[in-house]
């Protein structure tokens, strides 16, 4: 039997030594609760399973040229990233409960936390959360707990998938959630001025927002802080390579999806929720945290810290129910950031900007296509206003070999013709030209 070590002879030997039969070992399960005839297939060999899964993988269409973003990006991943995260000393370990045996994982996570702080400008970071959406939810819970207030304001320019997640999570809780509409693709300051009150725990925004537009939320931070509320920002980490940091805008908590930092798209996961915060909020931060200390010989050492508030000790009074982190994904992101480095990350970000703007010029030059939000500064995504329904256009372009973008009508009313187009550094000038030709041909 694959993956099971003991032979039948050894099994019998062990049972004999114990004076027991295999049935004795399961005698504590009442017979009427046993189940014998499982309707499952017979096992197959490695060769069979690899062939079978190669066939299954083959029915997934990955040959489309990808202009699809929406918070999940097709960035280039250096080979060394995969090589490093594939070291089984990392991936076959578990939570570093025994620090002496886990200095590799612990130091990697400490360095990851440091990289996230350096990238976002924030004072502290945790060892990661499940994904960008749950990270944003955890940030919201953190703000509710820190302010002891019950109201949250979340802009409609925040990723609609995250907004739906947050609505689900808060269904059974006494939390008032307001979602003011954005104005021309940007946060409408007037609405916030009216909405933020003495019971507001947090204002949640995104940069670049779901439409790709870049903003400076310094004024919103000031508006929130004046009334005792916190500013939470969801961010795209590649964009942080060049954009004004959440810290420079005085945000209190920053979260984001770390997938773009060297993690494959893998049909939605596993991904990486990163989180940074001000020092003041460190004890409200959920999840695992690695700290630096010294060992009994005064050598540098790393341990899990701030664990006293976590669920295995504090049970129903814990700051969060999150028990694990996405350690391997955090390690992957850390390897990616280390390889790209201080110069490489801004270069990737700038390349994304340059290619996206080139595509914007090419595509908006097509007769009948207009920009949806004219004159707004964007990073590597922008919204086109097509002369017909975007979802049909996208359907036609699939046949021509393009995933041309994301039709916004799925999540926004009155935007039937709006198409969100994303361009990463992987796209070439030639591919952009071919998309422009294909798009023009189907209009």
């Amino acid at each position, binding site marked *: 039997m694959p993956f099971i070590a003991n032979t039948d002879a050894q099994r019998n030997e062990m049972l004999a030594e114990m004076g027991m039969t295999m049935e004795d070992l399961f005698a504590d399960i009442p017979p009427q609760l046993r189940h014998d005839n499982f309707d499952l297939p017979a096992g197959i060999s490695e060769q069979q399973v690899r062939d079978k899964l190669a066939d299954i993988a083959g029915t997934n269409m990955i040959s489309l040229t990808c202009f699809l973003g929406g918070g999940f990006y097709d960035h280039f991943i250096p080979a060394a990233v995969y090589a490093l995260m594939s070291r089984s000393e990392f991936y076959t370990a578990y939570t570093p409960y025994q620090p002496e045996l886990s200095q590799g994982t612990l130091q990697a996570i400490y360095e990851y936390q440091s990289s996230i702080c350096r990238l976002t400008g924030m004072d502290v970071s945790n060892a990661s959360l499940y994904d960008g959406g749950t990270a944003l939810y955890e940030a919201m819970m953190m703000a509710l707990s820190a302010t002891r207030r019950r109201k949250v304001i979340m802009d409609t320019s925040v990723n609609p998938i995250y907004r739906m997640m947050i609505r689900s999570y808060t269904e059974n809780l006494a939390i008032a959630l307001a979602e003011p509409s954005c104005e021309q693709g940007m946060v409408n300051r007037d609405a916030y001025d009216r909405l933020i009150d003495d019971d507001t725990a947090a204002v949640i925004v995104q940069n670049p927002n779901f439409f790709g537009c870049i903003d400076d939320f310094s004024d919103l931070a000031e508006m929130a802080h004046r009334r005792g509320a916190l500013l939470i920002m969801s961010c795209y980490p590649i964009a942080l390579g060049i954009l004004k940091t959440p810290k420079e805008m005085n945000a209190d908590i920053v979260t984001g999806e770390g997938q773009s930092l060297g993690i494959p798209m893998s049909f939605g996961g596993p991904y990486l929720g990163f989180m940074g915060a001000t020092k003041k909020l460190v*004890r409200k931060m959920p999840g695992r945290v690695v700290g630096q200390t010294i060992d009994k010989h005064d050598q540098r050492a790393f341990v899990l*810290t701030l*664990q*006293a*508030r976590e669920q295995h*000790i*504090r049970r129903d*009074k814990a700051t969060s129910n999150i028990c694990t982190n996405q350690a391997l994904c955090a390690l992957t992101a850390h390897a990616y950031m280390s390889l790209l480095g201080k110069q490489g990350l801004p270069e990737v970000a700038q390349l994304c900007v340059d290619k996206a703007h080139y595509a914007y010029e090419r595509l908006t030059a097509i007769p009948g296509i207009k920009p949806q939000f004219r004159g707004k500064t964007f990073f590597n995504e922008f919204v086109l206003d097509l002369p017909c329904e975007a979802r049909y256009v996208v359907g036609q372009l699939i046949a021509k070999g393009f995933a041309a973008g994301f039709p916004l009508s799925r999540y926004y009313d009155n935007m039937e013709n709006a198409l969100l187009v994303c361009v990463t550094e992987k796209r070439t000038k030639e591919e952009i030209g071919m998309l422009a030709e294909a798009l023009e041909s189907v209009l």
Partner: protein
Amino acid sequence: MVKEGLLYTKEHEWVRVEGDSATVGISDHAQEMLGDVTFVELPEANASFAQNDPMAVVESSKAASDVYCPISGTVMEVNSPLEDAPELINESCYEQGWICKVQMANPQELDTLMNAEAYGQFLAEQS
């Protein structure tokens, strides 16, 4: 060690009464159970608590314990040196390690607390 002259709760808080003010801390037994205290989350000044409400948190590397308000009232003063020196709870739980001073709203509640002798007996029964 149980200090004479103080009142105690089953949750191991102590209370020192001076007029209508009650100084609150955690007992020697409590600090010993926690081990090295690494952080104290103090209540906010002017916050009001009912008896048995959680009002503060004392954290060590192995546990985080709520401190329950032993007597209803309003917080008049907190021991802010604990923010930088949480170890005062271990070193001097009855003196420098006090947590806050509460203006009592209902001093009759003091009757529900134990004196040093009763608390000593309570601890003996617990072990």
